[in-house]
């Protein structure tokens, strides 16, 4: 079968419409930093070099045998630099990461809950972005500059993606925007992992109210004019596996569920990165509206397929770490094992268990071999 952009798009459309596609779609997802290293450029320089981003998008499009271009930009260094970001910081080797930071002290819950937009703008943003910690005039200027840079850069990225998809016959990008679970927002950007772990014991009612207060913001971030089942809202989930079930049930789940339902009601379809091991919470995930895409990191593929794979689109569970050091045959054998479990009955897209961010994460030759194998083997 000769495949082109249209037939590859159809694979995903079939999945989204609950039909069994011609074959298992292959969706490899890489942070652009992986592709930069694959191309042999130094991360510490390349992430500043906006003009070369287009070259990286093309390398992503042509190199890895994925049905969707793996090249993904999430953390844009020039924008973080304008803002003076404290919440996203480049390491000595160039990988931008999210260190443990606190944007809000525990004494400020009431103020934040009363008006989360105002509090975020006035208090949190200047703490997370030090160049916003200045006079209102200067702050407005820094903000404007950062947003201009952000839209210019993404304007180029999206346009070039479309061009490359056409040139190399790839399916469209599957992610249209991103949001965050309300509890994760309060934890990761406001109170920190450490702070929230104490708050749920010291001031539980305020944590509940805080999650409820930020939910409309999270919903707004996750719905865009082009939102659809094929242009999904990406949500990387964080804190749930680090909590007891009774805490999850009280603090995490209610607003997360409300967010997901709200997204569907507003025409947006979620794509969850189910980080770490959610085995304890599979029954909860099954309560979400049907057709939610879930990329699982860990867990038993059989159990996951059985519990959520009938209602939702399951992806992930292929261990990226195997691709780093396994032989080609070991990698292919693993792919066969995973596909045999997850592909029957459809509702399945082949992805690895996490995004490759650094060239040390996975041997590119193994990625290519596995993707080629799945395309041939995964025919329905």
């Amino acid at each position, binding site marked *: 079968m000769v495949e082109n952009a249209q037939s590859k798009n159809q694979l995903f459309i079939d999945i989204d419409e609950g039909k069994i596609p011609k074959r298992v779609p292959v969706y490899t997802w890489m942070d652009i930093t992986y592709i930069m290293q694959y191309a042999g450029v130094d991360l510490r320089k390349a992430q500043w070099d906006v003009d070369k981003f287009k070259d990286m998008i093309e390398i992503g499009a042509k190199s890895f045998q994925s049905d969707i271009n793996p090249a993904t930009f999430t953390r844009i260094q020039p924008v973080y630099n304008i803002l003076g970001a404290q919440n996203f910081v480049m390491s000595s080797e160039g990988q931008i*990461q999210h*260190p*443990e930071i606190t944007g809000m002290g525990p004494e400020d819950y009431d103020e934040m809950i009363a008006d989360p937009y105002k509090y975020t703008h006035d208090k949190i943003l200047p703490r997370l972005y030090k160049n916003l910690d200045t006079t209102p005039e200067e702050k407005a200027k820094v903000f404007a500059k950062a947003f201009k840079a952000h839209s210019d850069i993404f304007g180029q990225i999206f346009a070039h993606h479309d061009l490359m998809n056409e040139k190399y016959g790839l399916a469209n990008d599957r992610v249209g925007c991103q949001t965050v679970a309300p509890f994760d927002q309060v934890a990761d950007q406001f109170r920190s992992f450490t702070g929230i772990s*104490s708050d749920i014991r010291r001031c539980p009612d305020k944590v509940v109210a805080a999650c409820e207060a930020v939910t409309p913001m999270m919903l707004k971030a996750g719905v865009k004019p082009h939102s659809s089942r094929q242009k999904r809202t990406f949500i990387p989930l964080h804190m749930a596996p680090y909590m007891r079930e009774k805490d999850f049930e009280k603090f995490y789940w209610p607003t997360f569920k409300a967010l997901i339902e709200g997204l569907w009601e507003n025409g947006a379809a979620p794509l969850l990165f189910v980080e770490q091991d959610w085995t304890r919470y599979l029954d909860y995930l099954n309560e979400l509206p049907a057709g939610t895409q879930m990329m699982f990191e860990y867990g038993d593929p059989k159990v996951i397929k059985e519990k959520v794979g009938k209602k939702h689109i399951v992806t992930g569970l292929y261990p990226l*770490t195997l691709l*780093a050091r396994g032989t080609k045959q070991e990698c292919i054998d693993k792919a066969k094992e995973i596909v045999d479990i997850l592909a029957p009955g459809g509702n399945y897209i082949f992805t690895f268990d996490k995004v490759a961010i650094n060239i*040390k*994460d996975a041997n590119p030759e193994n990625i290519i071999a596995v993707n080629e194998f799945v395309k041939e083997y995964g025919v329905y």
Partner: protein
Amino acid sequence: MNLKELTQSVGELEEEKVLEMLNNFVASNPSEEEAGKAVAACQEGMAEVGDLFEKGEYFVGDLIFAGELLTEAINVLKPVIGSGDTTKVGTIVLGTVHGDLHDIGKNIFKSMAEAAGFEVHDIGIDQPVQAFIDIVKEVKPNIVGMSGVLTLALEAMKDTVDGLKEAGLRDSVKVIIGGNPVTKEACLHIGADSFTTNAAEGVKISQGWVK
């Protein structure tokens, strides 16, 4: 003060109760020996927290809070513990390897290791090989603990162990690695002595080494 009840309350992470018990205890003007017993009871409670984590009843968030609670408890007890040298069971050098900025797991291990009586030298995040070598030369630890969350940390851990070897320091220390990506295979590849994704287990392994 009922020491068993104290241990149990620490284990159950009953912050208010623990602090109330300890404040009353300090107000009763205890001897240094009695204070030492209270510290030991808190440490036992911390060990219970570790056991509950291993059993899957507690999770990382609970360990973090346990660390906070223990710090608070020791602060309350400080005035009555006395200035005499507390018994040090061993010395650990601890850091997140180069390329990685994550430190939550490292910090949990640190507070649990300190609770178990180790002297911990924490050199921070994104630390180059040379920083590990320098501190090992300086404090001559029993154990070097390396932490990381990203998969790339595994190679950085290997660099660090290789660096210790080249500096002639590898045989003088035990090396333990911890964090999301560590596995038995990674441990062999890196040349560490042990690995864990469970801070409480890491402390137990460390205790085994300094017996």
